[in-house]
C-alpha cells in the first residue's frame, strides 16, 4: 500500500537550494576550474568619449605568461544584437548602434572594452593590460539624456542625429490634449527617475571553450537566459548555429535582470579559446569596480508630466514626455524597456480615459541601460503614483480617496486599457485579467493607521521630526507573454516567449524534471518540486529539478519579468498531465480495465469501484521502463515534454505604505514603518513569496533613499564603487509588515501571478510619496529622489529663504 504523500503545494517548505548555497557548496562560474584553463582580462576605456587612433600591444605580448593580446580589429564577429526595437511592428525608426566585442574606432562610455589579454593566470593578464598603449583622442562628453537631444550637444553616432535612438508614442494624442484643455485642474511637474547600478552578489563571468576536435563551442556563463544566448551569441554575433554551441549557466548568484543580456565578453572568451588553440578554455570574471561600467545600469528617465481632471477627483487625462537614457550604445533589449514596459503600463490601476506618452530614447556617454528588476514598471509606477499625489494635493483631496475614485472597478475585468499593452495591433490584444484594488488599499490603510496621520505628524513635529506617509497603489505585469501577441506587435524579444518542461519517471520511480527557465537564486528548484510533488503524488525527495544547460534541458526563454511561476510552472503542469495520462493508460493495461475506469489519486491509479485493483506510479514507471509488456502502439518509458504558450500576462497589484521621519535640522530621512499588502494570486511557497517581497521592497527603498549612479560632466562615474554607491543595509530598514489579498489569476491553472519584481515596483514610489508628504507642510511640492540628507536639507533651506 502506498504511503500517502503530504501535499506540499502552497506551504512554506524550506528551500532545497539553501544547504548548498549557505554552506559554500554552490557552483558558480568562478568556482569552475577546467584543465588547461587560461584567463582573460579586458582593457576598458578610461574616457567616456574618445576616438582610438591606434592600439600598441607589442609590449604586452612580451609580458610573462601572456598567450594572446586581442584588439577589436582581430575579431570577425558582428556587433552585438539588439532584439527589441521600440515600436516593433509599427515601423518606427530605431537608430541602432550596439557594442562590438571590442571597440574598434571609438569608445562611448568609461568601461567600454578596447583590448583583451589572455594569460596563464589572472594576475598576469591584469599586469599585461597595463602594458597596452592606446593612442586616445579624447572627445567632449554628454551624460544627461535631455541635454543630449538639444542643439549643439556632443554627437555620439553618425546614424543618430541629436543622439536620438527613437521617438516613440503610445495613446491618443488629440484626445489627451483635449482632455487637458477641457480640464478643471491640470498639474504639471518634471520628474527624474535617477540611474541605478544593479548589484547582484555574484558579478558576471564566463568560461569559453572551443574544442578543435569537434569544432564545437561551450560556454559557462552567469546568465538568466542560456537558451537565448545560444541564439544571440552564437547565431547573431558569431555566426555559429545552435548545434555548435552549448550554453551552461551553473549556479547564478543573483542577477536582477543584468544577466538577461548578450554581453561582449561571451563572444570574447569563445574567440580567445579558439585563438590560443589546444582546446584550452578561457575564463573571464569581472571585478565589482569593472562591473559598474561593463554590466548594464537601470532606470534613468527624465519625465515631463501633465495630469488633468475635475475638482471632484476624477482624473481625465495623463500626458508624459519622457527622455530615456540608454547609454553609449544599445544593450540587448534597451529600447523595449522605456516603451512597452513603461509607457504601456503608465496608467497603473486607474481607469483613465486619455493617456498619451512620448518617449525619446537617447544615447549619452554612459554605461548602457537595460532591464533592472521591475524594468519600466517601477518608472511607470513612480510617475503615476507621484501624479496622483500631486493631483490630490492640488485639489485638496485625500490621497487614498482620490485613488479609490479612479481605480478600475472590480467588475470591469478583463480590462482593455486603451493606451496599454492591450493596444491592438493586427487584432492582437492583451487585457488586464483581474483585480480588486480597494480591499488591499483598505487593509494597508488600516494597518498603517492612516486615519491618525495628522496626529502622528504633530507628535513627530514635537520631536523636531517631519513625518510623512506615502501610498503606492501599484499594478504590475508578469508572466510575459503570449507569443502570438509578440509576433503581431513585434514587441518583445523578436522571438517567442513560451516555456518548456520535460519529466522523466525513472525505473526506481524517481523523477527528474528539466526546465527551460533559469533561476538566479529565487528558489525555482523548490517551487517546481512542490508543484511536481503535488501533481504526481510523489514525495519531494524523489524529485530533482535540472535547468540552465542547452544540452539536456528543453528550449526555454529564461527567467526574468516575473514569468517563471506563471509560464514555467504551467509548462511543468502540462508535462505532468501528460505523464499522468500515459500512466493512466498503462495502468488500464496492467489492471485489465478501460482507461475511463481508472481514477487517479496522488500516485495511486485504481479501478473505479474496485479499490483493491490499483497500481502506483512507481510500479507503472518500473514496468514502462522495462517495456516487457506494452500494449499495441504504446512507447516504452515514462518521459513527457510539454511546451506552453501563455494566453495572457498576469497582473499582480497591491498597496504599499511607507512612513518616514525627516530630521528637519539635518535632512536625514529614516524609514520608520513599511506596510505592504500584495495580491500575487495563489502562492506556491508563501515563505519564498515573502522573501521576494522583502528583497524587492529593500531594493526599491534603496533607490528612493540612498542609491544613485552619479556621473561627472566628463562622463566619469563618480559613484564608481561601493564606497560611493550606497546599497541598502538590513539595519537601515524596519521590519516590513506584510499582508495579502488573494485574487487567483484566471490565466494559469495554479492561479499564480508572479512576485519577483512587485516589491521594488511599489516601494520606490511609496517612499517618494512619503518623503514628499513629510515635506509638504513646508510648501515643497515635489522633490526628486534619492532623498539623501544633503538633498533634503537643501530643499528645506530653500523654503526658509523663500519664507524669510
Amino acid at each position, binding site marked *: 500500500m502506498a504511503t500517502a504523500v503530504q501535499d506540499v503545494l502552497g506551504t512554506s517548505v524550506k528551500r532545497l537550494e539553501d544547504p548548498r548555497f549557505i554552506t559554500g557548496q554552490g557552483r558558480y562560474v568562478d568556482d569552475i576550474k577546467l584543465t588547461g584553463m587560461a584567463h582573460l582580462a579586458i582593457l576598458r576605456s578610461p574616457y567616456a568619449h574618445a576616438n582610438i587612433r591606434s592600439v600598441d600591444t607589442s609590449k604586452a605580448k612580451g609580458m610573462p605568461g601572456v598567450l594572446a593580446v586581442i584588439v577589436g580589429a582581430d575579431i570577425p564577429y558582428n556587433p552585438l544584437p539588439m532584439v527589441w526595437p521600440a515600436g516593433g511592428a509599427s515601423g518606427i525608426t530605431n537608430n541602432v548602434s550596439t557594442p562590438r566585442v571590442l571597440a574598434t574606432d571609438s569608445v562611448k562610455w568609461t568601461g567600454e572594452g578596447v583590448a583583451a589579454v589572455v594569460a596563464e593566470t*589572472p*594576475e598576469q593578464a*591584469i*599586469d599585461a593590460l597595463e602594458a597596452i598603449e592606446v593612442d586616445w583622442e579624447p572627445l567632449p562628453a554628454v551624460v544627461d539624456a535631455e541635454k543630449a537631444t538639444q542643439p549643439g550637444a556632443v554627437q555620439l553616432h553618425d546614424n543618430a542625429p541629436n543622439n536620438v535612438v527613437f521617438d516613440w508614442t503610445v495613446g491618443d494624442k488629440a484626445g489627451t490634449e483635449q482632455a487637458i484643455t477641457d480640464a478643471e485642474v491640470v498639474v504639471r511637474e518634471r520628474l527624474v527617475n535617477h540611474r541605478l547600478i544593479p548589484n547582484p552578489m555574484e558579478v558576471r563571468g564566463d568560461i569559453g571553450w572551443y574544442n578543435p576536435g569537434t569544432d564545437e563551442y561551450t560556454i559557462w556563463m552567469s546568465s538568466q537566459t542560456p537558451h537565448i544566448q545560444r541564439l544571440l551569441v552564437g547565431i547573431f554575433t558569431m555566426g555559429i548555429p545552435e548545434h555548435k554551441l552549448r550554453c551552461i549557466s551553473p549556479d547564478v548568484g543573483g542577477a536582477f535582470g543584468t544577466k538577461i543580456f548578450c554581453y561582449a565578453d561571451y563572444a570574447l572568451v569563445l574567440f580567445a579559446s579558439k585563438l590560443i588553440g589546444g582546446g584550452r578554455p578561457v575564463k573571464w570574471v569581472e*571585478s*565589482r*569596480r569593472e562591473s559598474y561600467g561593463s554590466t548594464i545600469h537601470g532606470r534613468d528617465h527624465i519625465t515631463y508630466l501633465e495630469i488633468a481632471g475635475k475638482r471632484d477627483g476624477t482624473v481625465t487625462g495623463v500626458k508624459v514626455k519622457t527622455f530615456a537614457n540608454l547609454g553609449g550604445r544599445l544593450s540587448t533589449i534597451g529600447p523595449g524597456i522605456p516603451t512597452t514596459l513603461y509607457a504601456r503600463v503608465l496608467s497603473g490601476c486607474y481607469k483613465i480615459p486619455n493617456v498619451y506618452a512620448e518617449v525619446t530614447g537617447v544615447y549619452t556617454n554612459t554605461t548602457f541601460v537595460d532591464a533592472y528588476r521591475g524594468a519600466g514598471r517601477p518608472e511607470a509606477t513612480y510617475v503615476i503614483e507621484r501624479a496622483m499625489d500631486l493631483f490630490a494635493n492640488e485639489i485638496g483631496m485625500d490621497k487614498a480617496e482620490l485613488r479609490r475614485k479612479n481605480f478600475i472597478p472590480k467588475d470591469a475585468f478583463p480590462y482593455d486599457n486603451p493606451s496599454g499593452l492591450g493596444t491592438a495591433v493586427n487584432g492582437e490584444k492583451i487585457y488586464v485579467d483581474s483585480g480588486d484594488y480597494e480591499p488591499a488599499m483598505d487593509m494597508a490603510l488600516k494597518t498603517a493607521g492612516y486615519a491618525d496621520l495628522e496626529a502622528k505628524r504633530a507628535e513627530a513635529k514635537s520631536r523636531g521630526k517631519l513625518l510623512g506617509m506615502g501610498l503606492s497603489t501599484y499594478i504590475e505585469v508578469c508572466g510575459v507573454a503570449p507569443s502570438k501577441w509578440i509576433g503581431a506587435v513585434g514587441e518583445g524579444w523578436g522571438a517567442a516567449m513560451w516555456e518548456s518542461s520535460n519529466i522523466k519517471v525513472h525505473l526506481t520511480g524517481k523523477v527528474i524534471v528539466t526546465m527551460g527557465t533559469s533561476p538566479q537564486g529565487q528558489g525555482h528548484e523548490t517551487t517546481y518540486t512542490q508543484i511536481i510533488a503535488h501533481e504526481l503524488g510523489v514525495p519531494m525527495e524523489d524529485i530533482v529539478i535540472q535547468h540552465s544547460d542547452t544540452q539536456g534541458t528543453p528550449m526555454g526563454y529564461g527567467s526574468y519579468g516575473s514569468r517563471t511561476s506563471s509560464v514555467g510552472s504551467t509548462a511543468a503542469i502540462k508535462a505532468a498531465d501528460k505523464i499522468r495520462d500515459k500512466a493512466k493508460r498503462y495502468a488500464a493495461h496492467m489492471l485489465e480495465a478501460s482507461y475511463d475506469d481508472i481514477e487517479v489519486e496522488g500516485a495511486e491509479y485504481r479501478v473505479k469501484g474496485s479499490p483493491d485493483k490499483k497500481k502506483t506510479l512507481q510500479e507503472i514507471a518500473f514496468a514502462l521502463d522495462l517495456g516487457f509488456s506494452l500494449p499495441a502502439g504504446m512507447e516504452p518509458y515514462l518521459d513527457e515534454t510539454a511546451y506552453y504558450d501563455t494566453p495572457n500576462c498576469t497582473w499582480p497589484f497591491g498597496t504599499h505604505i511607507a512612513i518616514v521621519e525627516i530630521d528637519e*535640522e*539635518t*535632512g*536625514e530621512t529614516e524609514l520608520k514603518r513599511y506596510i505592504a499588502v500584495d495580491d500575487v494570486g495563489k502562492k506556491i511557497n508563501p515563505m519564498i513569496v515573502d522573501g521576494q517581497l522583502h528583497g524587492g521592497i529593500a531594493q526599491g527603498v534603496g533607490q528612493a533613499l*540612498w542609491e544613485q549612479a*552619479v556621473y561627472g560632466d566628463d562622463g566619469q562615474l*563618480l*559613484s564608481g564603487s*561601493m*564606497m*560611493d*554607491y*550606497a*546599497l541598502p543595509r538590513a539595519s537601515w530598514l524596519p521590519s516590513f509588515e506584510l499582508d495579502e489579498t488573494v485574487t487567483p489569476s484566471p490565466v494559469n491553472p495554479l492561479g499564480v501571478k508572479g512576485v519577483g519584481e512587485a516589491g521594488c515596483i511599489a516601494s520606490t514610489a511609496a517612499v517618494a510619496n512619503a518623503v514628499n508628504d513629510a515635506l509638504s507642510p513646508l510648501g515643497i511640492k515635489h522633490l526628486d529622489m534619492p532623498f*539623501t*540628507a*544633503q538633498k533634503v*536639507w*537643501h530643499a528645506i533651506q530653500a523654503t526658509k529663504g523663500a519664507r524669510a
Partner: protein
Amino acid sequence: MIPNLFDYQRASTLDEALGLVGTPGTKVIAGGMSLLPLMKLRLASPERLLDIGRLAELRGVRQLPDGRLAVGALTTYSDLADSPARHYGLLGDALPDIGDVQVRNRGTVGGSVAHCDPASDLPAVLLALDAEIVARSKRGEKVYAADGFFTGAFSTALAEDELITEIRLPGPRDDAGSAYVSLAQRASGYSIVGVAAVVIKENGSAITKAGIALTGVGEAPYRARAVEAALLGNEGTLESIEAAAAHATDGVTVNGDIHADSEYRAAMAVTYTRRAIVAALGRLG
C-alpha cells in the same frame, strides 16, 4: 582587484621593524584595512610591505601608574572597545560605528592614526582628549601631542623612519564629560562630519576646559579652537552652546563631494558640534 607585485617581510621584533621603517619603497602594514583596498585598486603600489602585525609588545591596553591609559599601536578597535577605554564616553560612542565587524577586528589604532584619513573617527577622538602619540625609531622615542600631529590629508608629523608604538590617553576624571557624534556617508560609513567633545568643569558649574575636534570636514581632523574658547567660563546653556558651535569651521576650508557639498557639510559641522557638546555635558550630569 589584484594588486601589483610586491615583496613582503614580517618583522618578528620591534628592532627588526625599526631597521626597515622608512627604507625606500617600504610601507608598513598592520591590520591592512586601509592599505589593502588601495593596493587592490592599484592606487597604492608599494615595493615592499613590512608586516608588524605580530609584534605582541605593541598590542593591548594598560593603565600607567599616573592613571593614564597606554594603548599599544597594534590594539584593534574591537580590543579597545573591550578595554577600560570604553568607559570614555566618546570612545564608547565612536568605536562601535567604525567600519564594519571585519575592520574593527583587524584595523588597529596605530594604523588609523598613521594613515590619517581626513574622515577617520579616531584622530578626532584623540585630539579632543589631548592624547599623546608615542613613536619609536632607531634614533629613540619621541612623544607627539595629538594636537598638531595630523597635518593634512593622509599626512602626519611622523618622521620617515618612525613607527607609532603607543597612544596615551589622559586618566579618567569625574569632572569630565565626553561624546562623539557623527553623520555617516551611507556608502562608505566614513563620517561626513564627526565631532568629538570633551568638557570639563573643574570647580562647579562653569566649563573650565574643552576639547572639541572635528573630522571629515577639512583637509585633516582638527581642533575647533574658537568653539573651545567660546565654551570656557559659561555654564553650558543651550544658547551659549549654540553660539559656540557656530564657530565649528572657523578658518577651515570645508570639503565638498557628491555626498555632501561644502555648504551642507559646514552646516552639519555646526549642528553636530552642538549635539556633541550637549551630549558631553549630559554625561557630566
